């Protein structure tokens, strides 16, 4: 069942200029993005810095106001929701950030931070909330006695567990996790990934997992969306995107990701150039200056996101993809 349905979502930021001069230019951080997420699945959102993946995540939860488009969560229109409707929706849609340290109030104990959403939504008495927080701590693998400590006493991995407990407090259906393991050492990263997978099974959670790390996204996701300069260039089931890759940019990303296997060294090639400025994206296909397949058509015409080999579950925006 579709839980989240995103249609033509755009988010533009004015930059430069000043109060009296008006804005000079527009950064099209997210441009005409459409996709759906099914209940209980993980959609991995990958791309390099500046591709718009974080802005997309924040816009879905209305931490940023969209410029245009629609976001339907179940039967509710997220972007048109009033303040009170949005307040109710936030119980169902939560966010986990890269560095939980900067998202936790340093003056509150971690127990108080986890209880805060419950308080705001007036759930339970003080004593009941305390019990719920204890339960949440157990679920994320933190000991009871840590409840009354402050965030600075925690390691990065423990803070991410607190971040997850806080996000889970309201029993949401959807969690948007923005680079949740990127700041962690690999052994701790593995612990948090295992925990997220276990919580998903237990609570039937739906995840949008934003990351620049392809090996992590490949591991945790059911489906994957690849973004480049504000647009989705490929989306589909993970094994299709990884093993029958349709977009040259996805191929470049996969080829550039280091493989922990020295016997496969030298298999991959380098992609030239750097991502263009979102202030001044190339005409036609935004990837054309770096693309080994670029033809005259790619400079002129922007490719639409269309099915690969007639299968609507796997789509790509490339003139050269097999249809």
């Amino acid at each position: 069942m579709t839980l989240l349905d995103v249609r033509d979502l755009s988010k533009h930021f004015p930059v430069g200029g000043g109060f009296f001069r008006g804005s000079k230019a527009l950064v099209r951080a997210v441009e005409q993005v459409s996709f759906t997420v099914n209940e209980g699945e993980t959609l991995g959102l990958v791309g390099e810095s500046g591709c718009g993946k974080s802005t997309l995540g924040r816009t879905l939860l209305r931490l940023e106001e969209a410029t245009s488009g629609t976001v339907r969560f179940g039967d509710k229109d997220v972007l048109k929701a009033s303040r009170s409707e949005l307040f109710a929706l936030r119980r169902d849609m939560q966010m986990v950030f890269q560095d939980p340290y900067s998202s936790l109030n340093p003056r509150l104990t971690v127990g108080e931070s986890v209880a805060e959403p419950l308080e705001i939504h007036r759930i339970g008495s003080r004593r009941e909330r305390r019990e719920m927080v204890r339960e949440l701590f157990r679920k994320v693998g933190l000991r009871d006695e840590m409840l009354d400590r402050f965030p600075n006493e925690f390691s990065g991995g423990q803070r991410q567990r607190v971040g997850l407990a806080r996000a889970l407090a309201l029993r949401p259906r959807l969690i948007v996790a923005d680079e949740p393991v990127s700041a962690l050492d690999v052994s701790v990263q593995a612990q948090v990934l295992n925990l997220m997978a276990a919580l998903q099974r237990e609570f039937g959670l739906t995840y949008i997992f934003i990351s620049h790390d392809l090996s992590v996204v490949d591991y945790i996701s059911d489906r994957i969306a690849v973004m480049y300069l504000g647009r989705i260039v490929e989306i589909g089931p993970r094994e299709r995107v990884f093993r029958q890759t349709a977009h040259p940019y996805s191929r470049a990303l996969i080829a550039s990701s280091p493989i922990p296997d020295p016997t496969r060294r030298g298999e991959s090639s380098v992609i030239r150039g750097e991502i263009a400025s979102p202030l001044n994206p190339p005409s036609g296909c935004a990837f054309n200056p770096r693309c080994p397949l670029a033809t005259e058509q790619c400079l002129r015409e922007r490719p639409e996101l269309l099915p690969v080999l007639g299968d609507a579950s796997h789509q790509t925006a490339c003139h050269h993809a097999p249809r």
Partner: protein
Amino acid sequence: MALLEIKNLKVEFDTEAGVNHAVDGVSLSIEAGKTLGVVGESGCGKSVTAMSVLRLIPRPPGRIVGGEVLWKGRNLLAIPAKELPDVRGKQIAMVFQDPMTSLNPVYTVWRIFGEVLEKQFGLKGAAARRHAIEALTRVGMSEPETRLDQYPHELSGGMKQRVLIALALLGEPELLIADEPTTALDVTIQKQILVLLKEIQRQRDMAIMLITHSLGVVAETCDDVLVMYAGRVVEWCAVEQLFASPAHPYTEGLLGSIPRPGQTRETPLQTIEGTVPALFEVPKGCRFADRCPRSQERCRIDDPQLRLIAPGHRVACHFPLIEEDEQ
């Protein structure tokens, strides 16, 4: 003779909580033209080891309390400070993780190059500028002449790292120490930078000491690899040996915690229980014993020393995962 050989290096830091034994008896060596990877998690001492080579440990709070850093047989820890500039930046150069903090934001790229070229090589004016343009061209910088007149904030992360590499290469060093040189970069740019470093290495027969937390980067670029844990070397071998037959339980744990291509979340990743010990007191036995699935009583009493268990394969463990060669 090895180009660089570190013997039993010990570095301490004074902290509010006491003396931190950040590096406690590290030994390694690098041959000319080879790449040694130094891998380990935050706080294992890999960057401190790298900085000690050129005596860049801030003092206070840090100090090198023991060991030798032999550069072509000469102990850099013992030479007079006034002789250091002959080595630093000329014979041994360094590149750091964050290009933004390593480049002065109020100087143009040209001014940064100009200072180094004048101070270290006595080059000025048009000759210096020509030299800087050549240096930028060699590291694959697009439009080098335009870049020269830009400020660091006008450059992308990848371009800044190219500037730093170009600066590091000015003295034609025989050893480049690169501390997480690609960690702040996107993967496609990381790949470009790693390929560039290998190309320069081949052209000049330059040795590279690559400090990284990424086993993927190690697998793709290194000849030999050193795994560090809590201020110690736990394993040291050829990169193929490490991935095919890791000997230390910590190495095995690290390798198991990276998702493999095709592995899904139905198969939990291997984890290493517990956390890295604080380095304030030197434990009696093995530092990894509390987290080790193979630990026995001996591990808590007897500190394992790095020893050779197969040709070119060293491990500091009483109960390694591979059998000792009959020799």
